[in-house]
């Protein structure tokens, strides 16, 4: 796939990692203590969710940073030739002129080759006619 589409897909990947991360953190976060007046929140269920959460959030942040680094790598790999639009248009005009010249030369060669082919076919026909007519060589 061409590099610009890869870059666009990478941006979308970063976006999906970002909102997955934030959403997961928000959904799984343990309740927070509002004020010292209110009683302690009930203790969370067995500590597995806490470890899982730490593990998960680490994995998610690693994925996010990896996606961002890949984006940077893709940007570096962009074959962006300097000179901008005018330079490209000039090169296109040059190439078109060269293409026309080479095309005309090709046309000339083609015509010469076809003429030669016609001549050879004629000569061959004459030779075979003579061959057929002269039954015995003199």
């Amino acid at each position, binding site marked *: 796939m061409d590099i610009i589409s890869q870059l666009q897909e990478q941006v979308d990947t970063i976006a999906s990692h970002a909102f997955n991360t934030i959403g997961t953190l928000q959904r799984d976060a343990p309740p927070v203590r509002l004020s010292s007046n209110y009683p302690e929140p009930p203790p969370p269920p067995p500590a597995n969710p806490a470890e899982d959460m730490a593990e998960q959030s680490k994995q998610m942040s690693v994925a996010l940073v990896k996606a961002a680094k890949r984006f940077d790598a893709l940007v570096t790999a962009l074959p962006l030739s300097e000179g901008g639009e005018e330079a*490209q*248009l000039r090169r296109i005009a040059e190439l078109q002129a060269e293409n026309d010249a080479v095309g005309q030369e090709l046309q000339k060669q083609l015509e010469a080759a076809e003429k030669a082919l016609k001549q050879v076919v004629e000569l061959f026909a004459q030779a075979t006619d003579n061959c057929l007519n002269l039954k015995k060589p003199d």
Partner: protein
Amino acid sequence: MAAATYPPPPPYYRLYKDYLQDPKSAPEPPPPVEGTYLCYGGNYTTDDVIPSLEDQGVRQLYPKGPNVDFKKELRSLNRELQLHILELADVLVERPSQYARRVEDISLIFKNLHHLLNSLRPHQARATLIHILELQIQRRKQAVEDIKRRREEAQKLLKEAVGTLEGQ
């Protein structure tokens, strides 16, 4: 032009009655459209430009100007994005009710990123055209060389044949 749901076919077919006998008796096809045209009730334009961000009401974060340094801007936007995501996480911890502003900033950065990438497409199109032209020139040159070579071979064969015949 009828603007009904199922318009009938246009009545021009009658003008082409004698087309087989006299191709010039029928009208020429219409010239290509220029400017804006109406199609199925929608306005379309023949001039394809990418609408700038301001036209869509989105603030442009990277500097305007004739030649934008795409790589630099893409990289700095990426960094800004990462910082904003971290900020969002922080805001959710400390002041959860202020997430909206941060989320807006993040979506603004994404819109800018996508717009930058889209504005690279015309450049890509021109580069593809250059590549195709170069390939075509190379193929044509190759063909010229091939034809020259074959002609010379044919000449050589003919000379040999003449030599053989005369030697006989």
